[in-house]
């Protein structure tokens, strides 16, 4: 164990704490319905849903990135806020396998 001067800590050292096993449910993103608007990313209290590039498309002669929401299950606590705020209902909360009887 390292004991630092005045208990100072390094940035983002909280990443050592994987909180993905806290919840009973996990969000599943329906990529068909996801428009890549980013609302879920803006609200997620655990910084574990973000937009990632899945491809490109041509709109009015310009190349545009196609983005979809992607969940980081290492940290997701299963609060369900992303599903609640999604304007296209593209996120569903699903019971984790281990909780299924």
């Amino acid at each position, binding site marked *: *164990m390292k*004991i630092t*001067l*005045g*208990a*100072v*800590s*390094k*940035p983002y050292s909280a990443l050592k704490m994987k909180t993905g096993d806290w919840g009973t449910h996990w969000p599943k993103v329906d990529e068909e319905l996801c428009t890549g608007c980013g609302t879920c990313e803006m609200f997620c209290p655990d910084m574990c849903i973000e937009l990632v590039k899945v491809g490109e498309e041509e709109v009015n002669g310009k190349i545009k990135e196609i983005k979809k929401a992607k969940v980081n299950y290492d940290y997701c606590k299963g609060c369900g806020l992303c599903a609640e705020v999604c304007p296209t209902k593209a996120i569903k909360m699903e019971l984790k396998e281990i909780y299924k009887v």
Partner: protein
Amino acid sequence: MVRKVVRGFYAVAYAVKLCKPAVICAYPITPQTEIVENLAAMYANGELGNCRYITAESEFGAASILVGASATGARTFTATCSQGLILMSEVLWNAAGMRLPIVMVIANRALSAPLSIWNDHQDSMAMRDAGVIQVYVENNQEAHDMIPQAYKIAENRSVMLPFMVCMDGYKLTHAYEPVDLLEQETVDNFLPPYDPPIKLTTKDPLTFGCYAPPHCYMEFRVVMQRAMMRAKKVMEDVFKEWAELTGRNWGGLIATDYMDDAEIAVVAMGSVVGLIREVVEEMRKEGKKVGLVKIRSFRPFPTEDLRKVMKDVEKIVVFERAVSFGHEGPVAIDLKSALFGHCNAKVYSFAVGLGGRDIPKDLIRRCINNVIEGKVDEGFHFEGVKEFEEVII
């Protein structure tokens, strides 16, 4: 070097200016106020460089402002006493734990109730366990000299602790004394600019003030104790360097007179030491084997030095300026614990001059003589107390 007759608060303020603090913050309280008034005047006249001088909304606020400033990498200064110090106390414990080398002057004053603006050591004694270095000075030259030394010790990377320079309120702060005022060049050569090993900066975004669960809290207390203990050596070195630089040798963690063959040792801290020294000198002329031990550093406590000088002493007289209610005087408490098993001397402690009560030379002489002549019991006594009747109303 210029010798001038100045008042204590000016001697302190002038030395602070020479140390080039980046942030000074205080709240007025008698008898400290003139220290920061002098600094405020220097600030108003543009004599403090790029330093920021802030009058806070309370001593609690002042100390808190310095926590933020010190963590950001600024050399800081404040002065307070009495109620103001007690109001700061939560912050000082915090600053010590965060290892912030804030330097402050305590113009020692009694605590309420009853309200008293006059001198004793009850205020700084209440901060004994906070992890703050405490040095008591005897006169205004020592106060002046101690400021640059305080920064050098507090900011040493093996120490990194807050530092209290304790000087008696009124008795020193308001006294006119000739003081050799330091030159800027002397201080610049002695004290390097403050360059902390860590600080708040966006270039390296560290998290300060973390909480520690039981699995690691104790280790932080261990390293604080180690830092305090390491400070002893750092202080000795800095004091020596100062003596060589200025020709003024104030001693180490303690300073002694006539202790080589002393049978009776008299122990005290602060301005009363000057008076006691006179009495000791007179008694020596009368053939009494009396010596003087001035405790300069109360935290860290000079355990090893005291064991060394008290080895062959038969009786120890302690003049206290505070009381640990329900026990005895705080200096005697620590002295006895330091000497236990190392010295068989009997310890007699006398609380004198509480709340600014005068301490006449005769009283000092009588206390010591009574101990020599066996007229007084071991343990704790109040001296200089009037006859009174304790009533409800």
